[in-house]
């Protein structure tokens, strides 16, 4: 699972829908891999305003990556800065969680990740 995707994922448990603690999910015992993905600047500029930057900073720290700046770049800054584009591309599109768990900070539910696939099937009493 890409770091990009994790930035949009929230706990599926019914009682967590309205809680701000259920996002972002926290990686646990995460095994990472880096995929080679062709850079797609237009896509990055497109999703940038939708990225929850504070959550991305949290995730980045939790996965042991360098600390991100306090504020996200603007679209203009990003488009003009090749290095920043490349770094953001690597973080969002190339870094993958291949094994481990995602833990909800509100209900504690653990979503297992195997071979990059997260299991979001819930027992029916949690839906």
């Amino acid at each position, binding site marked *: *699972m890409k770091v990009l*995707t994790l930035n949009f994922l929230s706990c*599926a448990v019914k009682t967590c829908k309205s809680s701000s603690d259920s996002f972002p999910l926290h990686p646990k015992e995460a095994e990472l891999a880096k995929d080679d*993905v062709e850079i*797609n600047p237009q*896509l990055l500029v497109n999703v940038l305003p939708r990225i929850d930057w504070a959550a991305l900073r949290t995730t980045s720290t939790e996965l042991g990556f360098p600390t991100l700046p306090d504020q996200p770049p603007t679209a203009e800054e990003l488009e003009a800065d090749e290095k920043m584009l490349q770094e953001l591309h690597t973080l969002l599109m190339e870094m993958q969680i291949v094994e481990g768990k995602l833990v909800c900070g509100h209900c504690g539910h653990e979503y297992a990740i195997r071979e990059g*696939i997260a299991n979001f099937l819930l027992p029916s009493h949690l*839906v």
Partner: protein
Amino acid sequence: MSRPEDTLQADVHYNDTEARKYTTSSRIQTIQAAMTHRALELLDLQSPSFILDIGCGSGLSGEILSDIPESEGGPHVWVGMDISPSMLDVALQRDVEGDLFLADMGQGVPFRAGTFDAAISISAIQWLCNAESSETSPAGRLARFFNGLYASLKRGGRAVCQFYPKNDVQKQMITSAAVKAGFGAGLLEDDPETKNAKTYLVLTVGSAGTKGDITGVVEGMDGVDVVDSRRKGKTGKGEIKKGSKAWILKKKDQMEKKGKVVKATSKYTGRKRRIQF
């Protein structure tokens, strides 16, 4: 044609053998590709987008999204959800580019509000009409799915779901669940009344202007049945003023009698909207 939906649960039907058979059949590959291209045409994406593929299976639909060239507004990045571990396993072996989730669309869409530019679903959502467990009903699962999908799309976003309705009751069931969730909805039929008939549910989020509205998307296309109640009707005879609440209620009644899906009447029915369609 036999309908596995009527007797089995999807994750039981799509076991290892069936998943492999499905994915390697060149006939199926061709049909799924054609329908995915049709759905993309209806989504009308102009630039690289973040897309949800519901019931992505082994990735036959999703990989087309990754392969759209820059000259045609791609490539897109996608996330796939599927309930069948065997189908996802085949997707892994085929090394698809989308992120995969083992998830049941009938339980909702676990992404925060406004995540996706668009969503597609090819040959999957008819499963929501069947195979309920004792604890859940098709109506409840449809509601959770469409509510979740609606929230997960950005305002102005679109979803196109090709599906195989068993009959008109299922068409109506699915469409009305989408409308109830807030979508503008239209049904498009390609090759209607033939054995190759294909049904597409075209959904829009928000209606800030004609462009985002369903009537704009499918207007003029053959075989399109716009079921959104905002569609302009012919002026009714008699003294009922066109556009008045009474007129709308009469219109809705007529449409319902014809078996079409209409928006539930609310206290907003018949109020002036800022933008007229």
